[in-house]
């Protein structure tokens, strides 16, 4: 495996086995359009990373590649230092411990908040297990901690479709918590949220990061600053700049890309 990349980014003290996510030289082409162009990204265990970049920079495609929705043409995608994600489908990747929150809040609208959490909750996923297994015998208080964390305790029996936009985003984060993945991929969590909700979300993600590795894709620089983590700026499918929020936002090329030339 290419140790050179890790050396370049983290110095020689970080090895592949210490990474939760290792993306190296990944390219994806759709009908001649290069969505990802030799993208490389390394995430250590327990790290939080914010991904920024203008529209079409490849942020969502990158998540698609990691979660198995899109297959990459070239490059390596390794999870937890040793699992090759390129060969696996969505369900297997999710079961390895990669959770994903979509850009548009996608909760199961015709089911209650509690049932949404039930569906997400970690545990056997087979049809037989769900017909006869423990998922049918959960007590209500099992949900309490998650519902409290995301502030939806009073809404547990409401239909998820009746929640406000912000509440849906929170429910989706709650579902990720219930799923308890090793790595969370969070796509634009604060889109459409009020300032207050945005700050609460940043706070929540920081708390989640105490026990999980997190990748956050976001446009809102205010929010990214609040996360206080390393920032990677993508442009045209590859990494343009990486570092602290101050370093990245001071980077001339980043400014150029964001403001247009």
């Amino acid at each position, binding site marked *: 495996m290419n140790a050179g990349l890790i050396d370049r980014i983290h110095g020689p003290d970080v090895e592949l086995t210490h990474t939760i996510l290792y993306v190296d030289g990944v390219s994806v082409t759709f009908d001649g359009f290069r969505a990802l162009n030799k993208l490389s990204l390394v995430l250590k265990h327990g790290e939080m990373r914010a991904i920024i970049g203008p529209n079409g920079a490849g942020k969502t495609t990158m998540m698609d590649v990691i979660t198995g929705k899109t297959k990459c043409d070239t490059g390596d995608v390794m999870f937890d230092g040793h699992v090759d994600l390129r060969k696996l489908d969505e369900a297997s990747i999710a079961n390895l411990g990669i959770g994903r929150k979509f850009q548009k809040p996608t909760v199961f609208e015709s089911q209650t908040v509690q049932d949404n959490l039930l569906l997400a909750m970690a545990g056997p996923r087979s*049809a037989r297990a769900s017909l006869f297994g423990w998922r049918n015998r959960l007590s209500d208080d099992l949900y309490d901690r998650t519902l409290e964390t995301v502030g939806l305790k009073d809404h547990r029996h409401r239909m998820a479709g009746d929640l406000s936009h912000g509440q849906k985003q929170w429910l989706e984060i709650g579902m990720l918590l219930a799923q308890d993945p090793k790595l969370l991929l969070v796509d634009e969590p604060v889109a459409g949220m009020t300032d207050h909700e945005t700050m609460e979300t940043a706070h929540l993600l920081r708390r989640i990061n105490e026990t999980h590795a997190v990748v956050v894709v976001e446009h809102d620089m205010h929010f990214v600053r609040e996360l206080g983590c390393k920032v990677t700026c993508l442009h045209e499918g590859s990494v343009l700049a990486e570092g602290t929020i101050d370093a990245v936002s001071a980077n001339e090329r980043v400014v150029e890309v964001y403001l247009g030339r």
Partner: protein
Amino acid sequence: MIMSAFLRRIDGLGWVFLAVVLAAALIVPVLHFAMPPDSPFHMPIHAVSLWGKYLAYALLAISLDLVWGYCGILSLGHGAFFALGGYAMGMYLMRQIGTRGVYAHPELPDFMVFLNWKELPFTWWGFDFFPYAMVMALLAPGALAFVFGWFAFRSRVTGVYLSIITQALTFALLLAFFRNDMGFGGNNGLTDFKDILGFNIQAPETRVALFSFTALALAAGYLIARAMVTSAYGKVLIAIRDAESRVRFLGYRVEHYKLVAFTVSAMMAGVAGALYVPQVGIINPSEFAPANSIEAVIWVAVGGRGTLVGAALGAVLVNFAKTWLTGALPEVWLFALGALFIVVTLFLPRGVIGTWQHWRRQAADKKAANAPEKSPDSPAVEGATP
């Protein structure tokens, strides 16, 4: 223990449904046998079999609702599974004719003698044995659904494309069963049945018993479907219906879930077909006609998909109307059916039961809204947009 798990999951509407169906299983024999023929409460034997047919259709509708209403698989070929179950029963009934056929052959059914066949094809082996025939009524549709679903769901064929290939499936079977050399009676199908389990199939006692068995099977089918859709499995099914790719990213193997629902549903449809055939006295390839499967979809739409009880109700309502209308104005029926589908789609998209449930939920919400506010939003979402 298992029974109590079943019963706990039935709602008020389900209890009403079960009560009606089980009451029918008990009362219809009384209405036929205990009431004198001139009494207004007397139920003539042809009406008993007619209602038995409706109930078999209701079971088919519940099986279709399980995949369409809860999993979003719009099968336009469920009539194929129904017909396969019907053929399994028909083959048993043919073997029971024995030497009473026109050609009085001890082993071969009349049509085989007519075709100059010398021995029973292997597909017919064992069908003189009732339990084997009943197992086949379950297994043949189940196996077909399993193989079909395995390929379709694994290749992620969904929506209208899936509907079209289910339609093609039933049409292909229609053509195949039309052929004499398939060995299932060709164009004429199987008919002229004499006995079932040693009882004369024409006797009122047998026909009333068939009605009651159909009612019991309908109740059992409802209980199984209800247990499935209210379990965690059912929650996954509904989630698949509403946001399939999201379910994949949660780690569920969507294709397995669909396959289980589709196979169970096909087997249920097979049982419905097996109960239908002895009551109507014939099974022929026209049961595979795509129009039959589409009609079943209309029953479910009329009653309300995703309600189970609604599907059964829709089947009975539409078929009751069909019996009446094809008697009174035969040429109008197909137009009426088409109009019904359009009207339901435009003005009653939830169907009869679905609309009723929606009203009740709205009334309950209104009541809750008028009650004094008890729980303010938690601090975390205080700033939520109104």
